[in-house]
């Protein structure tokens, strides 16, 4: 409300008021709303070359909406979209067992599991891109092609940030921008290059790209190990079934305490196989919980590093 105390006179002022009106909303939503508004306003200004910016904005407030109204529309729409597009949240289960095992029906847990596995691949790609781009930018900077190369590289980082955001939103369910930040057209070339360097989002996106490699390695190792252990435990009865045909040789106790041999011999029997299978199932469900939690954390990291804070 306080944002519209005076009508906006320039596009920048309009966008600033819109940003203020959306203050409490998700930063990804703000980025989308600002992109749409700027595209519309610049088109309006371009289509009617005769009019000045203030007169155009007066008209736009009537047709496109005042910043407050636009903010309201976007907040409304966001609620509807969340309901329509997102997978419905898994039904709330009361019992502890229901909560524990219900995770298998949660698409977000599976999405996170695959995202974390896949993170090694994207991590290698981003890391290589950022390191190669930065070092080549530094190397080329003494040459005439240095500046265009740096501009291209920074632009590509923005594109990658948007792409990674789409990936994060589909697989981890964290709201990310659907539109890039609006390109700065009204500034001179050198101002634009300056803005690229001073934009903290450029640097934080690169930091995200670099971080993705160690994180990807960590996620990948954790999940592959965990999956291997839990799946092999689950498969214990099958192994036992196959092994039945072989003469079962008990473990000989050369050294070490007798109870250890007893335990190992028992593990080789059906009872041991059943216990291992149950243990494997529990481990697998725990893995789904861990993946969902890690996915959520990673989504928050992506949002902080790839999207500008309001």
């Amino acid at each position, binding site marked *: 409300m306080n944002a519209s105390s005076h009508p906006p006179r320039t596009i920048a002022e309009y966008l600033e008021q819109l940003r203020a009106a959306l203050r409490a909303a998700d930063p990804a939503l703000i980025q989308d709303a600002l992109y749409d508004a700027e595209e519309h306003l610049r088109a*309006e200004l371009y289509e009617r070359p005769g009019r000045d910016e203030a007169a155009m904005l007066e008209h736009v407030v009537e*047709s496109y909406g005042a910043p407050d109204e636009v903010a309201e529309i976007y907040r409304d729409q966001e609620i509807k979209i969340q309901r329509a597009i997102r997978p419905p949240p898994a039904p709330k289960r009361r019992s502890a067992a229901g909560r524990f095992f219900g995770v298998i029906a949660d698409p977000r847990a599976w999405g996170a599991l695959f995202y974390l596995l896949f993170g090694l691949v994207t991590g290698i790609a981003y890391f290589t891109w950022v390191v190669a781009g930065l070092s080549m930018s530094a190397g080329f900077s003494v040459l005439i092609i240095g500046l265009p190369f740096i501009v291209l590289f920074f632009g590509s980082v923005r594109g990658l940030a948007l792409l990674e955001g789409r990936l994060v939103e589909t697989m981890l369910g964290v709201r990310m921008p659907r539109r890039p930040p609006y390109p700065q057209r009204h500034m001179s070339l050198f101002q634009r290059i300056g803005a690229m360097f001073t934009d903290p989002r450029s640097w934080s996106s690169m930091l995200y790209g670099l971080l993705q490699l160690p994180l990807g390695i960590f996620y990948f190792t954790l999940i592959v190990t965990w999956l291997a252990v839990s799946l092999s435990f689950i498969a214990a009865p099958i192994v036992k079934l196959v092994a039945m045909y072989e003469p079962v040789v008990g473990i000989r106790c050369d050294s070490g305490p007798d109870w250890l041999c007893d335990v190992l011999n028992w593990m080789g029997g059906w009872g041991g196989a059943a216990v291992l299978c149950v243990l494997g199932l529990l481990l697998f469900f725990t893995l789904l919980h861990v993946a969902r939690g890690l996915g959520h954390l990673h989504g928050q990291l992506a949002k902080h590093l790839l999207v500008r804070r309001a």
Partner: protein
Amino acid sequence: MLHLKLSGSAGECVDDGASQLKKFQKELSAGTVSLVLLAVLGQSRQPLYGYQIAKRLEEAGEGVLAGKQSALYPVLRNLEGAGLLASEVEPSVSGPPRRYYRITKFGREVLREWTAAWNASRDSVDKVLQGEL
């Protein structure tokens, strides 16, 4: 209740009617805006960008889009997300960069079904309003 109504000024009464109308218009346009956008892009020979679509709807009259034009953009994005529209950004030399939308094959199929559904519900609403039941 009656007392309250009587004590309220006539102005408030009119205001109340106007706000009811506004609410109804908002609901109507919320239900039809996707169909209208899909139809505009279905009839267009070339891809259109948001501002062009807004201007076309402006020519069609107030009825189509009761609210503000800013409501178009999220809907366009949703339709794109659902695979009914496709879009690409075209940087223009002189003007600002624009995102052009065009209808997809799937979008055309959906538009045909939606049009049929719209015709059916419009006919039945008309029947009720004209008291032909």
